Structure formats: structure tokens, C-alpha cells
């Protein structure tokens, strides 16, 4: 049977099913294979917040969404081109996001009476015409795999379990991707269990062949490979990127690495990864709480380690007092805050940009800390290294903000050769030069880092105000003013050491969009779309929040209107208003969800249409 092949620029697909249906696996494999064939990819897993929600329920739906394309893809896609729905609940939950005319692949075995009831459907949507706006493919995947695997000595339950692999195979055919990478991966995973391997390989093949042979499926799609820089690639989540960033930074700084942390969603995985790096000599303390997490890290920093602590909102709140200590001690410390929806416990699995204020201002007294933010999953790697570089160079704690969306989302990452990574130069104080605990580098204002064990440099530090240079406890009024100002200036000096803000688009004009953090993808997509349409606007994405890039004020001054979309009630907006003393237009979506590109696009279109009405 000959089929049509259509070329597409980018596609969004979502695998959805019950928590037990293995959708995460289908998604990850699809994403990896798409990377291997050279597509640009962006993905996000979407788990239920319950550990194991009852089967078939609406709140038990688990999904994995992938956008892939032949040019740089910055988000997971707003609307679904393809929905794979393994049961009724997964259709119900995800249907609102399927674009008109999109493809729905439904496993009819998941639409029995019980399933329909759990999904709160009165009638079977596969039969009642309600999906007429979509291209619906109904397949009884369970039956097919049962049949295909009938001769294997496997339980029915296990046989059923391969339906996610069947679905994967089918989508491989649909988007013309090879099955080999997944076959190879299965081989490695189930090498020791030949029956199971065989079952999975057959299911994969069966899915692929189903597409090949189906009468209904008349069109195959192809997405050309993106024009990507040469190199080794892998898919990476923000959390793993942070973990790798810490190890790489320690390597570049020639320091041992310490992590003191306490589990908290959605930051825990950084701790998981680093706990697995034992052979790298990394030391980890899973502490009794977040306070002990950061305090142990401060202890290790004092001992000469590249030291770090990782957490999310509630944990950051607990670390506040110790952060102030790190500020006055002037010890290097990387603090990674994976933001989630607050306040309080809030919505732990949902992302938000609600911790910017707290990162900037959330300590008693004048306790300035540099704050930077990652803009994509892969960027978490670079920004973690940057945090370590700044921390050690300026002898200061540094806060890196990521969020639940970056933390769990993946994108392909060009694995940088270690030599390409920025150098981190650390020197400990030695007796060779004149030593004083608060003797400072003239340029950076960083104090010397003298670690216990250094002969002859015995000294005392602490949380009381201290005399500059000697570090002796001092209550002298003038000295206090001096120290408060030095600590502020030291952080400000970092502005000389970070890249200028990069302006995309017109050099000057009416509208400048300023974003930060994980909304990069959505804003970039909207920005590209609108500029491609010939609309006039410019875009700056901030990775440095404190200090702000030196050229930001200049850039802003060249635009009539500044628009700052944020997943909070306007925190960066407030900062920009007070810093540059000019009005900033905010857009505040606080729903525990990342921006969709079209939401930004709509806002921008409206702004562009109402030029006068600012």
C-alpha cells in the first residue's frame, strides 16, 4: 500500500494514559529517537500528584508531551497535533488541548464501561461523533498485543503492559522514525530476560507495522533534521543538568563537591542524581531538614569545598537565616531553588516564578545575594556552573532559580566538551602572602578563602559584624556602614563580570519584552512568530536578576513600552520599576502552569494593536 509523505516543520505529540500505562517510557523513547534523527525537541512529563492514583480515574492520568521540529523548538507546544490516549480519562483530560483536525490515536480497550464511568463520560466519545473535528484512529491495542504475544510464556498482565511500546511503534511509523534506537535500548534493558525482550520488540514492530498496513492511516509525516551544531547530544532535564553542572563546576574549580540537602518536590532529583555520583568523590549529606542542609553546606564551604544546597520554596524559606550567615561570612555557596507554586505548600508539582522577591529581598538586615536564573532545561547546566564561578570568585552565596517546569522538562543538550567549559579559578590563602580574614581583592572585593588545615592561618569568623580586613568583631558605627556598603558593592561588581543583556530584534522602538527564567521558550516562540509576521518588537531575556546586566537600562531607555510577562504577580516588573523608575506593563498568569506561546502572542498582539493606549 503506498502512502503519502507530508513534511512538517514541527509537531506536538502527547502520550497519555493511566499512571500504570508506561506513558513516560513511550514519551522518553520518542523524544530520544527524535533527537537522534536530528530534530530539535522539547518535552515535559506530567504526572498525577498522587503517588498511585486509582486506575482509570481522571486524576490518575499520566502524560508525556513532546514538541519536535526541524528548527529550534523552545516549548512543548501549546496545542496537540497528536494525542495518544490509552483510556477514556486520558482522552477527557487532554482533549481540550488537541487542535482542530489533530490526530487522536485511541486504544479502544481503554474505553469500556468502567473506564467511561471513571472518566465521567455518559456516552463513548469514540462512538458518539463528538470527535468529528479530529482525525480519530481507533485501535484495540490490548487485543492486538495479546494476539501478537500469545505464544510467549507471559502473563496476560504482562502482555498488556507492552501496549505503550505498541503505541510508540505506531508513532514511529507515523513520523517516519527508526525503531532501532528503541530496539537497542530494549536490548540493553531486558538483555537478561529474553522473553520480555522478545515481547517488547514484537510490540514495537507490531505498532510500526500497524501504521504501515493500516488502510485508514494514509499519510506519513516527516520532520527534517534541524540544523544543529555538531557534537554529542542527549536529552536532559533541568534537574539532571543542575546536578551535572555542580560536578562539572567542581571539576573546573579543582575542588571537591559537597551537597547538603533535604528532599523536596520538585528539587529532589538533583539530590538523587548527586547521590549517585559516589565514584566522583562527591560528598552528600541528606540532612535532617533544610536548615541542616544549608548549614552543613556552609560548614563544607568553610572547609574548602565547592558547596551547594538544593531546594524549593518552603525549603528556601527555612534556609533564610543561614543564607544571611553565608553573606556575612562571605563564603561561596551555590543555592539552587527549583520554584514551585506557592504560597506555603501551595501546589508542589506545579511551576511558578514566585520566589524572585524572596531570592532578592528575603533576609533580615542588608544581606545582598547575587541571583541568576536558568531559561531552559539545558541552560540549567550552564547557569549552575555560572553560579559556582560567581560564588567562588566573589566569595558569596549565589542563588540560582529554576522551576518545576525546567526541572522536569527535557530538551536535547549538546554535551559540551569539558575543555569548552568556563574556567573557575580558585586560590586558597596561604602563608606566603600577608593574610587577614577579611583582606579583599581590590577588584572583586572578595575576601581571602583560608581553610582550616592551613598552617599558620588560624583565625576566627562568625555572624557578628566584623572589622574589615582583620575580621575582628566590631560594633564601630563607621565600620558597620563600611561593611554593609562593601557587601552591597561586591555584589554590584558582578555586573562587570557578566554578559550584557542580549537584545533580540529592533535596536529601539515601541515595545520591548523582558522575560526571565523558564518562560523563555514561550516568549521566544511568540516573539519569533510575530516578528516573522513582520511585527515590530524586541526581546530581552534576563538570566541575571541581581545584579542586572549593565546595559539593561540603556536598552530599556530605547523603547516606549516595556512588557514583562511573569508567572507571579509582577515581581520582576516591580524590580525594573524601582531600578529604572519607569512604568512596566505586566502580564501575570499565576496558575501553576508555564506560559503557552499563544498566550504571550495574544498579549503582544493586543499591545501592538493598542499602541496609543499605554
Amino acid at each position: 500500500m503506498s502512502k503519502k509523505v507530508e513534511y512538517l516543520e514541527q509537531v506536538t505529540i502527547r502520550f497519555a494514559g493511566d499512571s500504570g500505562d508506561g506513558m513516560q517510557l513511550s514519551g522518553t523513547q520518542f523524544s530520544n529517537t527524535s533527537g537522534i534523527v536530528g530534530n530539535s525537541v522539547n518535552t515535559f512529563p506530567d504526572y498525577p500528584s498522587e503517588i498511585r492514583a486509582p486506575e482509570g480515574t481522571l486524576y490518575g492520568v499520566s502524560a508525556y508531551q513532546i514538541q519536535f521540529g526541524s528548527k529550534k523548538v523552545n516549548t512543548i507546544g501549546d496545542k496537540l497535533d497528536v494525542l495518544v490516549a490509552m483510556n477514556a480519562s486520558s482522552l477527557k483530560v487532554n482533549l481540550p488541548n488537541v487542535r482542530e483536525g489533530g490526530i487522536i490515536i485511541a486504544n479502544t480497550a481503554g474505553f469500556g464501561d468502567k473506564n467511561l464511568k471513571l472518566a465521567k463520560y455518559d456516552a463513548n466519545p469514540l462512538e458518539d461523533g463528538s470527535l468529528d473535528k479530529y482525525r480519530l484512529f481507533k485501535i484495540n491495542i490490548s487485543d492486538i498485543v495479546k494476539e501478537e504475544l500469545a505464544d510467549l510464556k507471559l502473563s496476560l498482565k504482562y502482555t498488556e503492559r507492552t501496549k505503550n511500546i505498541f503505541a510508540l511503534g505506531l508513532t514511529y511509523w507515523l513520523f517516519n522514525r527508526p525503531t532501532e534506537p528503541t530496539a537497542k535500548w530494549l536490548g540493553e534493558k531486558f538483555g537478561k530476560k529474553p522473553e520480555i525482550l522478545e515481547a517488547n520488540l514484537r510490540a514495537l514492530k507490531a505498532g510500526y507495522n500497524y501504521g504501515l498496513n493500516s488502510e485508514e492511516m494514509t499519510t506519513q509525516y516527516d520532520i527534517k533534521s534541524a540544523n544543529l551544531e555538531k557534537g554529542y547530544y542527549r536529552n536532559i532535564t533541568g534537574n539532571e543538568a543542575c546536578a551535572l553542572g555542580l560536578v562539572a563546576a567542581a571539576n573546573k574549580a579543582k575542588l571537591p563537591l559537597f551537597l547538603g540537602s533535604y528532599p523536596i518536590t520538585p528539587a529532589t532529583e538533583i539530590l538523587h542524581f548527586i547521590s549517585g555520583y559516589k565514584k566522583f568523590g562527591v560528598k552528600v549529606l541528606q540532612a535532617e531538614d533544610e536548615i541542616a542542609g544549608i548549614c552543613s553546606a556552609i560548614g563544607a564551604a568553610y572547609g574548602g569545598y565547592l558547596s551547594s544546597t538544593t531546594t524549593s520554596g518552603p525549603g528556601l524559606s527555612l534556609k533564610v537565616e543561614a543564607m544571611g550567615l553565608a553573606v556575612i561570612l562571605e563564603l561561596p555557596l551555590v543555592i539552587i531553588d527549583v520554584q514551585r507554586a506557592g504560597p506555603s505548600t501551595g501546589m508542589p508539582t506545579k511551576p511558578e516564578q514566585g520566589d524572585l522577591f524572596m531570592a532578592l529581598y528575603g533576609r533580615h538586615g542588608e544581606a545582598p545575594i547575587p541571583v541568576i536564573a536558568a531559561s531552559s532545561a539545558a541552560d540549567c547546566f550552564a547557569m549552575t556552573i555560572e553560579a559556582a564561578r560567581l560564588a567562588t570568585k566573589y566569595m558569596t552565596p549565589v542563588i540560582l532559580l529554576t522551576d518545576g517546569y525546567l526541572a522536569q522538562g527535557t530538551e536535547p543538550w549538546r554535551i559540551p566538551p569539558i575543555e569548552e567549559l568556563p574556567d573557575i579559578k580558585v586560590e586558597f590563602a596561604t602563608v606566603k602572602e600577608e593574610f587577614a580574614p577579611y583582606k579583599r581583592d581590590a577588584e572583586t572585593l572578595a575576601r581571602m578563602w583560608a581553610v582550616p588545615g592551613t598552617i599558620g592561618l588560624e583565625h576566627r569568623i562568625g555572624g557578628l559584624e566584623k572589622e574589615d580586613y582583620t575580621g575582628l568583631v566590631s560594633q564601630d558605627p563607621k565600620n558597620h556602614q563600611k561593611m554593609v556598603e562593601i557587601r552591597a558593592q561586591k555584589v554590584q561588581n558582578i555586573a562587570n563580570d557578566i554578559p550584557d543583556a542580549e537584545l533580540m530584534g529592533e535596536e529601539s522602538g515601541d515595545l520591548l519584552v523582558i522575560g526571565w527564567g523558564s518562560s523563555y521558550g514561550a516568549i521566544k516562540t511568540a516573539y519569533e512568530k510575530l516578528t516573522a509576521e513582520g511585527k515590530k518588537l524586541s526581546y530581552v531575556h534576563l538570566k541575571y536578576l541581581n545584579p542586572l546586566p549593565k546595559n539593561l537600562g540603556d536598552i530599556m531607555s530605547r523603547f516606549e513600552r516595556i512588557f514583562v510577562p511573569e508567572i507571579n504577580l509582577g515581581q520582576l516588573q516591580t524590580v525594573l520599576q524601582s531600578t529604572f523608575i519607569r512604568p512596566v506593563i505586566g502580564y501575570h498568569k499565576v496558575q501553576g502552569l508555564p506560559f503557552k506561546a499563544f498566550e504571550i502572542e495574544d498579549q503582544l498582539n493586543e499591545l501592538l494593536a493598542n499602541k496609543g493606549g499605554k
Partner: protein
Amino acid sequence: MRNILEDIVINHVSDPAGLTPKDFKNELDVRWCAGCGGYSILSQVQRIMPTLGIPKEKITFVSGIGCSSRFPYYMDVYGFHSIHGRALAIASGLKIARPDLSVWIATGDGDCMSIGGNHFIHACRRNVDLNILMFNNEIYSLTKGQYSPLSRPGQKTKTSPMGVLDDPFNPAALALGSGATFVARGYDKDPKMLQYLFERAAQHKGIAFVEIYANCVIFNDGAFDNYTEKDKRAETTVWLEHGKPLIFGTNNDKGVILDGFTPRVVSLSDGKYSANDLIVHNEHDSTLAFILANMTYNEDVPRPIGVFQAIARPSYEEKVEWQINDAITKYGEGDLNALMRGDEYWEI
């Protein structure tokens, strides 16, 4: 380790021979009140330091906040005066990172057992090799006289004008209940005893907790006089010595027996009981340690002073190193390139 710490940690170590107590003093005025129990503790620490055979640069004192927590300022070694209650958390990180250091904690009854309680019990449980000197004055002194979790019921303080309602912790029992391996008690007024206890603590691998009755002349003067004054202590305290029966009294004429699980005082002079009937101290017996600890607030029996328990268990930072070495032996030293590539990668 292929890192720049190596040089400091391993290659350059000073010779501890010839150190004297003076080498551990610095030029700062000690700013405790005249008569404060802290002075004796400071002197005894300075006195035993040279005897430990530890290079001076390897010694670090970490403290929290309180009068007692000023201690590190007065020692000419590495010192870290941190924030209230967190000394043990900081010291745990330091010791795990730097097992080559000898890490000491100076803390108060409030710093250690009130705000610092959680770190205390977890450090005990983990058995990190830290030496804790807890200055117990049964009061918050630096903040001018509020009751602490070790104050006595009924005690009148600025926050308990009608008397403390709380029952106090029994610090030795809390430490034992948390899994501490070395637990001891001493007092400011007996320098030799403190020297002995500090040396024992230093020698112990794992957590070593020494509670020290330290008189606060300003806010709780005389709280321990009954147990520490020369003319009283023979009758009111009993010295715990491994393998020895619990004998006390000005004339060594009293002993402690166990009646069921209840310790009781008996006379050794009326012929009814002899030393053979008495509890014989065994530092390695956790149950006995708990029985002795429970004598603390019992006015019918003498207050035990000395080492309650000293048992061997691998220390935490040691196990951390073992596991790392295991990992390297099993899987080879980490290859950063391989780690970054992960399991699934591709080339473009």
C-alpha cells in the same frame, strides 16, 4: 583527590610536638564575667590541646550563639562562631567534608538543646566524629536570664516569674536515646576532671558529648553548688569509673546498688553491704548508661559524674569515605565525560 585542597590537607602538616597551652591562647581579652564557669573550661581545653598530638592547624572550634558560644574567639585555632543552634549542623558538614580536621563544638544548654535540639539528636544518631562541649548553666545567659530546657521546675527566671513549668531534658538520657556513642558529664570546678573528660572525648571516634556544669555568676549563680563545691560534692556526686563499683561519700562509705532497676544508696560502713554488692560501672553497657543517666534528677541518689558510656561504632564521615572508595573500586573513578553523556546520547 585531584584538587587544590589536597595540598593543604595532606602535604603540609605541622609538627604538633612541642606545642604548649600558650600556643592555644590568643591576644583577645576574654569577655566573660569574672567568675564565669567558662574560664575553667577554656583553661582545661587549652591545657589538653598540646597533649592530643594534633597539628594546631587541624583543630577547629565551631559554636552557635550564647555566652558559651563565644568560646572559639579565645582559642588560637580555626574558629567559627555561627548562628544560634546550628553549630552541630555546620560542624557535621565540615567534618564530613574534612575528616582530617579535629572538630570541636562549644555550645550552651539553650544553643544545643533548645533551638539546636534537632541537630543534636541527628548528630548523635549519625555518630559524626565531633567533640561537643556543652556548657550547661541551666539558663539563657547571653539574653540575660530566661529559663532553658535544662532549667529546674519551679526556677524563677525572667520568663518564669512564678516558676518554670517545663520538665527539663536529662541531657545524658537524651543523648543516649538519640544513639550517642560517648556521653559524659563534668563540672567547671574540677580542672583535672575536665582535662580527663576532654581527652577521652578527643580520643573517642564518633560523637562525644560532654555536658559541663558551668556556673553563671550573674543569672543562675550557685545552681550547681550542691554538686560542685569542695565541701559538698563528695556526698552529692558519684564518680563513674569503668570496672569500678559506685562508691562515694566523704569517707568513701557509701555505695549505689540496684534494687530491681532502681538505684539506691546503701551504707558501706554498717556491715550490711560491701563493694561487691554495688553497681559496677561498665562504659560499654547502654542499659546501664541509661540507668545512671536517670539518676540525674533523683535526689535520693548521688549525681553521676564521669563517662556514662563509651562504645565503638564506625563514625559517619568514615563511612562516607568508605562508600566513595567502594564506588571507585567497583565502578572505577568517575569519568566526567561519560557522566555528562549519560546512558543515551547521539552524535550530530
